[in-house]
């Protein structure tokens, strides 16, 4: 339809549009969280929504992460479709019991009687010099838990369309927005062009090596792929998009083609989601691999404040390029 002139949106605006659309489309959808209303959202995602939808549907909560996430779970059980914003993943630790012990278990332990159709959004990641308590990347923890789904839109298009998929899902969905993405601008395609929620997407094709990434690291992987291309290494770049369940089909198909794997992930290395991807590939594509699977992750250190150390602690393009070349024996 609007194929002719494609609208340009920032990631932030795309997410806001997604929320607006959901609110307009279903009277049971509401947004709740700290500072989503009067303040306009800590990263300004929900700016203007209070004015548009009023206090009954854009709800500023007290600082009570466990309380309001739990209330969101209850509201979902009561027939609403809550979008709960936990400001950042750092504070989600306070709500983890509610997510792991309630949201994730209720369907199973009630023998299938109870649905918890909640979407829990949060910002994640480092890059803004916010230091040790405000720079976590804990998507891997959530991706470990049966009963919830986990998505990480890395593009403006996915920011625009994945929320609707999450809301359409009858199970709890965690949605991670990397803090460094909010200002990215890109044209938004037709909704019909957006792949299903649980599908990984090949963002760049290439026969030489598979780079797997998601969220805030995807752009770094793509940038690295372009740098590699200049050195005649043609990488394939996979955006996981959905971290639970994992689309292993797309993943294995690519590795079986390229025979080489490098995972880029901002989580701390030990116990990272990147480790899981490497393990899966080692288990399932062992005989087609031409080199050990590798990963570029964050260093094992609480993220420090100074710019140069924060950069040294987290994955960078140069490191991805170097590691990819090692895997190619170049």
């Amino acid at each position, binding site marked *: 339809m609007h194929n002719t002139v494609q609208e340009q949106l920032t990631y932030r605006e795309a997410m806001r549009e997604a929320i607006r659309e959901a609110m307009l489309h279903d009277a049971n959808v509401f947004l709740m969280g700290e500072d989503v209303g009067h303040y306009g959202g800590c990263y300004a995602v929900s700016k203007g929504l209070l004015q548009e939808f009023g206090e009954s549907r854009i709800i500023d909560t007290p600082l009570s992460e*466990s309380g309001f996430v739990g209330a969101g*779970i209850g509201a979902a059980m009561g027939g609403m479709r809550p979008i709960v914003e936990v400001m950042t993943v750092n504070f989600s630790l306070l709500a983890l019991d509610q997510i792991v012990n*309630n949201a994730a278990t209720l369907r*199973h332990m*009630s*023998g299938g*009687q109870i649905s918890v159709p909640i979407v829990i959004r949060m910002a994640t990641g480092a890059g803004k010099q916010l230091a040790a308590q405000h720079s976590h990347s804990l998507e891997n923890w959530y991706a470990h838990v049966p009963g919830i789904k986990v998505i990480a839109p890395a593009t403006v298009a996915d920011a625009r369309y994945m929320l609707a998929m999450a809301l359409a899902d009858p199970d709890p969905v965690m949605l991670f927005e990397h803090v460094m993405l909010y200002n990215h601008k890109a044209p938004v395609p037709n909704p019909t062009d957006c792949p299903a929620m649980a599908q990984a997407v090949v963002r760049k094709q290439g026969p030489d090596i598979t780079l797997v990434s998601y969220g805030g690291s995807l752009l770094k992987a793509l940038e690295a792929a372009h740098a590699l291309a200049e050195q005649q290494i043609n990488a394939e770049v996979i955006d996981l998009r959905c971290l639970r369940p994992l689309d292993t089909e797309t993943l294995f198909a690519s590795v079986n083609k390229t025979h080489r794997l490098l995972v880029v992930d901002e989580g701390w290395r030990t116990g990272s989601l990147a480790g899981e991807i490497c393990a899966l590939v080692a288990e399932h594509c062992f005989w087609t691999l031409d080199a050990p699977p590798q990963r570029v992750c964050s260093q094992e250190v609480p993220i420090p404040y100074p710019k140069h150390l924060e950069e040294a602690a987290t994955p960078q393009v140069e490191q991805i390029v170097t590691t990819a070349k090692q895997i190619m024996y170049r």
Partner: protein
Amino acid sequence: MTTANTKPHINKTHLHFLLKQMVRIRRFEEKCAELYMQEKIRGFLHLYIGEEAVAVGVMKVLQDEDAVVATYREHGHALAKGLSMNAVMAEMFGKMTGSSRGRGGSMHIFDASKRFYGGNAIVAGALPMAVGLALADKMQNRNRVTVCFFGEGAAAEGEFHESLNLAKLWSLPVLFVCENNMYAMGTALSISESEQHIFKKAQGYGLAAVEVDGMNVVDVEAAAQKCCSAIRQGEGPHLIECHTYRFRGHSMFDTQLYRSPDEVSSWQQKGPIVQLKQWLEQNGKLDQTEWQQIEKEVQQEIEEAVTFAEQSELEPNSALCRDVYQESA
């Protein structure tokens, strides 16, 4: 609080109903303890014996569409809310016919059709959920009450604090019922709370709160009646602190080093069933035959439930991973 006539209409039928409900719960759990020793029931088993007046008194004033959220000590609440004894017993046996398809066991009895939302084993973990259920009702303009039961031990958790604040802040139709049985496992209230009157804590949130003799089912019912009609009239959340006592250990593993047999037996003498039964007898409202009839009916219901549970099927291993996500999704 409302000025409407909230005094429950107490007649013989009514009192017999309350008595029978308490007896149902008592005998059911005595049977469960027996079955636990026979290893037919496993996991943690938390008996409500001694506290029956609380669930029975509160549940009497609820309507079908009101919701209940309880703890791991919830057999009594489940039965009082109208779940069939068959389904509850089968759940304890881990059978497919159980109220949670056998997946939950004693601690996780659910029945969405009866608006019975567990069966929750994380202390205080269900309080926020109760707030949310009430929030949904308010948002949908449904005049329903959500009742949330929890122990006095739970009042120390941060979730208690966060939930009471949210409930009052948003003026939600929740009734918090604190079952103060004086102990959290082996920890006496005096070593866990600087302010030991739980109902007074509610004032820190501007919440209306009362305390009541939790061994007296009529008192509990009256208090619940008052609170629920206030809630239904839009007066926001209320809290009732029920003073009660569990006659058995915390769970089947408890050696009860933390309290004396004397303390236990002095509470047993003012037990909710014995109290009501005596009053009825003394007032000529319960004769031997009637009592035996109650016991007989209850006995029969329990035997049927055990047979039902015994004869029900176990889930096949092949179905292990069902109901993790909605199947079609």
